[in-house]
């Protein structure tokens, strides 16, 4: 009679006594996420954006605030700026010539183009290539979009991190301790929810001045509300679970139970929320920038670039299209990744809001 084989320590066995590899929540989620092609594509796009924006100081691009007066409003092109300059000028002169019913350039116009050609030959600055064109002050749009992306993404990330930390802390404590404290905190959250928040932010930015710090404070002020509510709900549903009782019976302190045992169990939900929050922050920041309340010149953010582009879109559409498309692609990727993460971490929910 064979003695039943004792399972080895630290290994799982199923009912047939076969060894099983333990699968953590995260490994499982990653396996599911890998199957979701849109989410993976989103992840790649986001990583590319992060890399490009992070490296923008060392990339071979022109300084984002440097104005070259001669290079105003040049369209996107792979060729050197000088050539583009001459072409746009000639095209413009041809247009006026046809409008005036002439067949030749006047001496004055001829001289103008000659001078430009001379200048282009002698000045090395005209050898620059503006892949995305320039704005109305002759600044490189590619460089401005990259540096604007740094600001936009930074605000998105710092806002989210603040929201996550404050939200987890207050939500966990409120949910675990319960009673009076819980009532008080949740009543406060309710009141904050009933404020016309964006209107207050607009007013505060206009009153206290436009700088990044104010922007950050205004956006982070109420961002933690939703996370706090969600975490609280999760904690309340978990706090009577057996593993909490076990921890308590072994003498774990309240703080330890909250932050070592309960909070990690809510991380899945938080990750999903955080991913979807980044695009929201970026949108809010750009919303303010669009109203002229965001970052101040010569700094740029995607919102302020879209705003500047929209002002001149009739004549120079690329100045609107380039930042608008850049920003939309990023937000798009973030949303796809967020959806993918939600499906991966919580297979039961199907794209809930």
């Amino acid at each position, binding site marked *: 009679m064979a003695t039943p084989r004792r399972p080895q320590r630290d290994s799982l066995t199923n009912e047939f006594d076969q060894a099983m590899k333990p699968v953590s929540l995260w490994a499982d989620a990653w396996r599911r996420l890998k199957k979701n092609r849109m989410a993976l594509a989103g992840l790649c796009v986001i990583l590319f954006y992060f890399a490009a924006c992070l490296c923008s100081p060392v990339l071979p691009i022109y300084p984002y605030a440097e104005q070259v007066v001669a290079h105003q409003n040049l369209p996107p092109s792979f060729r050197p700026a000088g050539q583009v300059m001459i072409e746009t000028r000639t095209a413009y002169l041809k247009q006026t010539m046809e409008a005036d019913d002439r067949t030749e350039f006047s001496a004055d116009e001829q001289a103008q183009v000659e001078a430009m050609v001379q200048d282009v030959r002698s000045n090395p600055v005209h050898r620059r290539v503006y892949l995305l064109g320039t704005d109305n002050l002759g600044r490189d749009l590619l460089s401005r979009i990259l540096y604007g992306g740094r600001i936009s993404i930074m605000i998105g990330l710092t806002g989210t991190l603040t929201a996550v930390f404050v939200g987890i802390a207050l939500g966990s404590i409120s949910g675990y301790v319960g009673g009076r404290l819980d009532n008080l905190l949740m009543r406060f959250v309710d009141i904050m929810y009933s404020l016309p928040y964006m209107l207050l932010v607009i007013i505060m930015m206009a009153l206290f001045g436009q700088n990044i710090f104010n922007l950050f404070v205004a956006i982070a002020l109420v961002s933690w509300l939703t996370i706090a509510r969600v975490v609280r709900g999760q904690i309340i549903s978990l706090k009577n679970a057996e593993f909490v009782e076990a921890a308590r019976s072994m003498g774990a302190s309240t703080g330890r139970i909250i932050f070592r045992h309960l909070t990690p169990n809510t991380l899945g939900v938080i990750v999903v929320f955080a991913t979807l929050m980044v695009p929201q922050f970026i949108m809010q920041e750009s919303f303010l920038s669009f109203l002229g309340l965001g970052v101040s010149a010569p700094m740029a953010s995607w919102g302020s670039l879209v705003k500047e582009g*929209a002002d001149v879109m009739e004549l120079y559409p690329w100045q609107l299209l380039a930042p608008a498309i850049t920003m939309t692609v990023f937000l798009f990727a973030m949303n796809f990744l967020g959806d993918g993460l939600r499906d991966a971490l919580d297979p039961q929910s199907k794209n809930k809001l």
Partner: protein
Amino acid sequence: MLRFTLRRLFSLIPTIFLIISLAFIIVRSAPGGPFSSERNTTPEILENLKKKYHMDESLPRQYLRYVGGVLQGDLGPSFRYKDYTVNQLVRQALPTSMLLGSLALAVAALAGIGVGILSALRQNSWIDYTTMSLAVIGISVPLFVIGPLLKLFLAIRHDWLPTSGWLGGRHGWLVLIMPVTTLCLPYLASIARLTRASVLDVLRADYIRTARAKGLSETAVMLRHVLKGALLPVVSYLGPTFALILTGTVVVETIFTIPGMGRFYVQAAFNRDYTLILGDVIVVSILMMVMNFLVDILYGFLDPRISYK
């Protein structure tokens, strides 16, 4: 039901006071004042100006005076638009913003719910995939990108729609199309996603199986049971959405030069037009609360489990 309604209405009063007080504190703690940009003012003139607007009194007294006025429905005189009271300014601008906002909300809700139900019923078909991908685009593209792009292609490149303006001009109701489309798209997309998810949830619920088991026709199941249950989360989303749309009108009004409340928000704050800022905040907050209140009431009709006592 009536008692619940009344109690709910009364509970709004402290919140409104809180909002007024908070806004008062924020506005008054900002540097500068309404008269700091006046040129060539002698101290005497400044003194008289201050007296006229009761700015010479202590802050608590000013606060009480203001709240007293608000209780009587008087939002005070505007500091900047000297010939107007805030009431007059709001009365001129609010209907425009409300029309724009309500139209956008109505379009977003109706179209969003329709699209959501359609893609839930045809789950995993090409309709579902297309509409849901479009929905992600919808929530990813900010208002101030959609607006200028629509304007660029529909009004500037092609002369199909008027670039700007409002009702009463020579273009008639055509001026409504672009602003309403711009304003409703993100919310339409969110509502479509939400509806789809909640219809899928409800379709799996036990009470739907019961309804089918007792022999109800598929149409009856869909209309009486699925739709009613699935609309709950959508309805609760409408309250906050209305608030977002109200602030979203700022951008749309800027892009399409519409004479609504939006232009006051930023300008009033820059001008330190204290009464106008507070008036804006109060009006928008009350609108938000009324909307949330209506949503609560609607909720009770849709969900028999909720009883208002």
